[in-house]
Structures are given as C-alpha cells and as structure tokens.
C-alpha cells in the first residue's frame, strides 16, 4: 500500500502491499528494465507503481496508446536482451492478440512477462473473460498467483522461465489477487544494469513451420519445468482419495471451505501455480491415488477440461476417477457453473453436496424480518457519474439537443466512465456498447445506411483516452467513405475510469517527463473532418453546439472538453455550492425537483423537512452546473478561485 514498501531494500522484511504492487515488486526483484501498459482494471496500478520508481531503479515505464503497441514496445526491449513487462486487462489481450500470436512464434530474448488481469464477476469490466483459453491458443505458458505474496513470487519466477524458454510468459491475475492486499515477505532486489543490444545479424522472425515445432518443444520443456516448480504445491494427507485441484485464489477458498466442513485431514488440495502447460507428470502422480477430483477455478473449466483430457490419455495408469466441476454442474455459484466468482461459501456448499458432509452456516438475519423493520425494500445503489462529472452535463446537452431536433436520433458509445450512459445516470442514452472505440466504427456503419432510407441522425460518444486508443482507424474509415455521423469526444483530459493515467493528449508521460503532446484537434484536422470544441459546463452553448452539428452531413466531431471533476478538485479547496432557501420554492416551482430528480446529480438532494432542495456538501464537487440550470436561480456558487 505504500511505494516505500515496494522499493524497500530489506529482504526478509514483511510489508503490506496490494496485489498490483506485489507484481511490481516481483518485477523489480527480477531486474525489469522496461515496462509498458494501457490502463485497465484490475491491473491498472502495476505500471503506475513502476513509473513512480523508474528513476530510482533505472527502468523505463510508459503508458502506451493501446495494448497492442504496449506489447510491441515491451517485446522490442526483450529483443535487445532487457527484461520487460507488459500489463493489460483481459480485454487488452484481445487488442494485442494479433501481435501476441506472432510473438509467441518468434519468441523473445530477455525475459518477457505479460501480466493479464482477468475480472471474474466482471466487477469493473463488461465481461468476465477467461484469458487462459487465449493463452493456450497462443502457445504461451500461464502462471497463476493464489495470493498477494504469490503475485510477487510468481512474477519474479515468470521472468526466469521466460528467459530460459526464450518465450513470453503470461502471469494471469484475477481481481481478488490484484485488488487484494496482504503482508508480503520481500526478496532481494535485482541489480539493474543490462545494456540493450541488437546486432546486425540478430533476427527475430515469425516464419516457417519449423518455428511451430520449436514452439511445441518450448511448451514441453515448460511442462517438465512446471512439474518441479514450487509454484505448484500440495496440502493434505498422503495418497488422498479425494482431491481438490485449485488455481488462483480458489486455492485459499478451498482450504477454508474444507476447514469449515471439517474435511482438512481427509481431502488433499493440489494448487496449480502453472496452469498452462499442465505439469503433467505431477498431476498424474496425484491422479493415480485419487478416486474423486473436484476442480476449483475461475471462470471457465480450463484446468478441468485439460486435466480430464490428460486423464483420458492416461486412462490405463490413473484408473477410475469421478470428476466434479463446472461440466457436471457440481461446482457452481448462484449464477450457475462457470459464471461469476467462487468464494469459500460457494466451495463449501459444493463440496458439502458432493461428499454429503453437512455444512452448518452461521444463522444469517431473516431478510424479510429486516425489510419489515425498515418499512421498505433495500434501495439499490446503482452506479452513477460522480457529482460534478462533465459527462453528466454532456449527456444532458445531447439529450436536450436530440429532443429539440425531434428526429429520434440515436446515441452509441463504448468503454470508459461514459459507459454509464447506458444507465439512469446517463439518461439511458447509449444504445450500443461493446469494446474500446467500437461506437465510432458502428457509427461509421450506420452512417452509410442512408442509401437504404435510414435517415436518423447518429451520435457516438468516445472518451479522450479511447479516442487515441481505438477511434482513429474508424474515423479515417468514416472520412474515406463519407459516412454521416457526429462523433462527440467527451474529453475529460485524462483516463479517468482507471485512476487518471495520462494519454498522448497530455503534457507529461507516465514518469512525469514532459511529453510531445499530440492534440486531438490536429489529428482530426489531419484526417480532414470538421470539428468544434465546447465546454460542457456551459450547458446552453453545449446544447446549441450539439444541435447545430446534428444538422450537418458527413463525419464531424464535437469535442466537449472539461477536466474530470475528481481530478480538478484533488488537493484543492472546492467551490461551495448551496441552495438559497429564500429562492427555492420547492414543489410549487413546477420544475419537478429538477436538480435532484431530473438532472440527477448525487450532490443535489431534497430536504423533506423544509420541502426544498439542498446540496450535500460531503458529495458536491463544486462544478456549479446545477446553478446554471435551476429555473429559480436558487443555487449559489461561492467560487474559491
């Protein structure tokens, strides 16, 4: 949790770290020289941590424009012999897949580790992709830490494995490791100081079927290595007839579930720290004594399917085994097998059902009784744009302009804070939402349907970081084909959703060095698309700008630019905003409680006692947009600057 902990030069000391910091520490213990990433939950904090230590450890760190480029720049460093690290979320691996599949054939030189953050339960993702299936297709080894401590140990180990195989190695981390914290026993920091070398005869080429054969040999070596690796471990009685095979944090859950069931002495738990390629010899040695095997993993039945295939190939050695997992529905959370996270309760219930061991849960409160006491059901707490979020003002302007326009215009979007445009907080405006930059491509498609009589105006919103990451090819495509739509860039001058990382439109880099900024206006002008820039906090002007551009044809861009409200107030005195009770006339106004009910900023609350609007000063970020919209001008903004 502290940067001091990550760089602490005291091997053998325990410090508290987050999983992401632990990954960063592991890379430092391995002597990483080069790190790159595009921010994404749950792994967004790894590169940020390394960037803060870049100078001290003589390493290079960058927020790349997207994951594919991030992987390419990291591979370049590896080609010169440096140890390199590239970090992304599962969705990012999809973006980088084309290069990754080629890189897996050419191989690398310096140890290269690809950290992929999977998000079982989709806490902060649009889906809960299990990247292990992709990694298998890529022919890349996959290591999985089970705890915060292991996040460090596994990362460090991954560098050595990669270097010995001359093949990138994936560290697959799930949210419950990345976003967990715990005590970490520190190892030795590796001395920096490798010099990059790329000589005239050096070739890193992806070509010929011979290299495919080499890939398979590397994986066979990895399987042998995995059989002796201490990343796999066994806990339980010798010759266990009942075995749980677990990976990632499910290992911790399995131990606790067995404890709760009183089965710790009778059931063995085999933790796989290496889930691809499988440590076949090791697995076979346990399968030979086991009669019943339960799989505990997230999300897909990856280990399950592959172990069952292994057992089938060795049926004459392993004998009769009953397998329990997602395939037969025996290991399942409330949403069904293979959907969502596991936890100690889910595993305890599953194991209890499998082995008929009663699971006595503590008596939970009777929910209905509590709802009766509350006098109401529990109010849901849906996600909302933050108080003062410029996106709220932008969505309000788009919604109003579309109403004024009256042609039933449609709005598309994609990934970022503005994804919340699919929900109440964004007035349910967004009608498509897929992946980074997809809104612009879909708009480009809809913008060509006029020849079939499709005449609705199309707006797509895209964030500033997403603009650089993925919108540019679609914009060029739109210009080239004269597709008719309006692209609204919701420019909050940062990558807000993942914690305010810089992008090519910013003045500084990840490490705080001055950057050669690439203004989006220059890019748009270069593509040849007309554009305008407007401050969304000036709602009236923003509505007018949206409306005016809605009437135009061809591709056009409106940049609604205003810094993220959270970034703007960080470390500063906020404006004081309050309701003048003399001016607010409550429900007799006829505004339908505009500020709290219609504009729906969480800082605009209603005081039932006085029957008037109020500002919640603990929530308000002082943007003052509500003051400009209040029909009675009853909201006062005391500016601090």
């Amino acid at each position: 949790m502290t940067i001091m902990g990550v760089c602490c030069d005291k091997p053998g000391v325990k410090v508290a770290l987050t999983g992401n910091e632990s990954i960063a520490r592991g890379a430092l213990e391995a002597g990483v020289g080069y790190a790159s990433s595009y921010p994404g939950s749950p792994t967004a904090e790894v590169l940020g941590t390394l960037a803060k230590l870049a100078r001290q450890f003589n390493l290079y760190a960058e927020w790349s424009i997207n994951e594919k480029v991030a992987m390419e720049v990291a591979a370049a460093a590896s080609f010169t012999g440096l140890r390199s690290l590239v970090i992304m979320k599962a969705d990012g691996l999809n973006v980088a897949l084309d290069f990754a599949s080629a890189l897996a054939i050419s191989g690398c030189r310096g140890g290269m580790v690809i950290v992929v953050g999977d998000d079982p339960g989709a806490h902060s993702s649009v889906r809960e992709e299990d990247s292990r299936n992709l990694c298998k297709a890529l022919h890349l080894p996959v290591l999985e830490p089970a705890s915060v401590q292991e996040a460090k140990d596994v990362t460090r180990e991954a560098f050595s494995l990669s270097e010995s195989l001359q093949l990138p190695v994936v560290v697959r981390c799930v949210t419950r490791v990345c976003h967990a914290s715990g005590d970490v026993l520190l190892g030795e920091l590796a001395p920096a100081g490798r010099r990059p070398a790329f000589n005239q005869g050096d070739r890193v080429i992806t070509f010929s079927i011979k290299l495919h054969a080499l890939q398979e040999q590397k994986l066979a070596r990895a399987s042998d290595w995995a059989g002796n690796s201490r990343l796999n471990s066994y806990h339980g009685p010798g010759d266990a007839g009942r075995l749980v095979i677990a990976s990632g944090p499910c290992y911790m859950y399995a131990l606790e579930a067995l404890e709760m069931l009183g089965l710790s002495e009778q059931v063995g738990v085999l933790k796989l720290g290496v889930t691809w390629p499988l440590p076949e010899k090791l697995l076979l040695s346990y399968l030979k004594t086991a009669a019943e095997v339960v799989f505990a993993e997230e999300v897909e039945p990856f280990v399950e399917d592959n172990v069952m295939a292994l057992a089938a190939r060795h049926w004459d050695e392993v004998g009769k085994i009953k397998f329990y997992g997602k395939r037969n529905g025996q290991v399942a959370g409330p949403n069904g097998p293979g959907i969502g996270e596991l936890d100690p309760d889910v595993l305890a219930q599953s194991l209890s059902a499998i082995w008929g061991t009663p699971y006595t849960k503590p008596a939970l409160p009777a929910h209905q009784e509590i709802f009766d006491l509350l006098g109401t059901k529990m109010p849901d707490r849906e996600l909302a744009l933050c108080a003062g979020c410029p996106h709220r003002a932008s969505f309000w302007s788009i919604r109003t302009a579309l109403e004024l326009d009256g042609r039933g215009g449609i709005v598309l979007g994609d990934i970022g804070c503005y994804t919340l445009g699919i929900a109440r907080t964004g007035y349910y405006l967004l009608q498509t939402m897929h992946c980074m930059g997809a809104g612009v491509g879909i708009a480009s498609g809809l913008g060509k349907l006029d020849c079939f009589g499709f005449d609705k105006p199309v707006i797509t919103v895209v964030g500033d970081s997403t603009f650089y990451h993925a919108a540019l090819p679609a914009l060029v495509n739109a210009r080239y084909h004269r597709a008719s739509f309006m692209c609204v860039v919701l420019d909050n001058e940062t990558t807000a959703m993942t914690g305010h990382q810089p992008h090519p439109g910013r003045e500084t880099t990840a490490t705080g060095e001055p950057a050669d900024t690439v203004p989006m206006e220059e890019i748009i002008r270069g593509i040849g698309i007309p554009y305008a820039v407007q401050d969304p906090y000036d709602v009236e002007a923003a509505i007018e700008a949206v409306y005016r551009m809605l009437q135009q044809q061809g591709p056009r861009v409106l940049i609604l630019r205003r810094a993220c409200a959270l970034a703007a107030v960080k470390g500063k005195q906020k404006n004081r905003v309050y309701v003048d009770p003399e001016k607010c006339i409550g429900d007799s106004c006829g505004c339908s409680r505009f500020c709290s009910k219609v504009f729906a900023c969480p800082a605009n609350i209603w005081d039932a006692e006085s029957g008037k609007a109020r500002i919640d000063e603990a929530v308000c970020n002082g943007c003052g947009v509500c003051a400009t919209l209040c029909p009675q001008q009853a909201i006062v903004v005391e500016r601090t600057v």
Partner: protein
Amino acid sequence: MGAFHEPLNIIVTGVGGQGNVLASQVISVAAVEAGYRVAVGETFGVSQRGGSVMSHVRISHDRPYGPLIPRGRAHVIAGFEPVETVRVMLDYANPDTVIIMNNRPNYPLGCLLGEDKYPQPQKILAAVQKMAGRVHVLPATELAKEAGSPMAANMVMTGALAGSGLLPFGREYFVETIKSLFKDHIRELNLKAFTFGLEHIGSNVAWRVSYNENFAGNL
C-alpha cells in the same frame, strides 16, 4: 492472539468515493506493522462511481487467509453509510457481530429520483440492532467536518475502530501508519479526524446507544 478471533474478520463498507479503500489500507498496514498477517479483499474500479463498496479485512496470527470472509462470519462491520451497513449485515452479520456505523446517509440515485425509498433513520437503527449484538452509531461525517473536511469521515471511522478495543493491536500503529501514508495538511487533517473518532468511541460507555444523532437531510 489471546482473546481475539483468529482470523479477525472486519468488513469496511460504504459508497464509492467515501474513502473506504483507504481506510482498509490504513488498517492493514497498521496490522502488518504490528506483526500480524493480513488479507484484504476489495472491489474498486467502476465501484468508485457511486456504487456499494466493501472491503474484507482479515487479521491473523500465523496463517494466511483468503481475501473473502464467508457469509455470516464478520466480527466487526464498520459502516460508512447506514443503508450500506444494513446491506452488508444481511449477508455477513451474526448475533455477535459488532457494528460501528456512521449516521450520515448517502442517497442512492433511485431515492433521489423518488423511485425508491430511503428507510427512516430510526427504522435503520432498529434493523441494525435486531441483527447485531453491539451497535455504535457515530456522526462521523459531522466529526470530520469539525476536523476540517467531510471527506475525512473515513479516518473518523478508522479512529472509532482503533478505539473500540476490538483489534489486537494499539492505536499507536494507526497513528504511525497515517503519518507514513500522508503528508502536510492532509496528514494533520487525517490525524485529527482519527483522534475524533477514537475519542468519540472511547467516551461512549454504553455500546447499544440510543439514536439521538439527526440524519443530515431527509428525503
């Protein structure tokens, strides 16, 4: 760990933006400094955009635990927001669970829009008392404002937890942690807020308090 539970299961809950994650970090750094093992499971990301946030903090002596507390097995719930406290209690409280709760509501969007009802303060207290053995309600946001900023309610709550006698290590570990994590005026603010929380719980002899504190604002 003597009279303390092994592992000691603490849940810190509230609304994204209230600083719950920071509070759980302060607790876990302090625990490690005091020589304990700790596992914290928390969810952030989109949750920082006004969603429910819950951190599981597990403090143990020797053995590491996973980052998730099984249902019904929380020993302490520190609720930064009343409805979120109830929400977590429904799944994780048992009759022996101790509750430390901020009395300040943060209204969900549905309540602001009039589609959902935010329960009455007295009813929330009745529900909380029905579910838990000991309940301590404190005006953490108001105390934080006195300390200098309503945003420091998380440190008031941390102070209350530190002063509750429920943890196996002393307040000095918290003070050192806050000093190491923050600088300048934020450090001073947080230390002051922490002390306010500590003193408030220390001065409150009766645990099952009557509900005198007014909610700020009603719907």
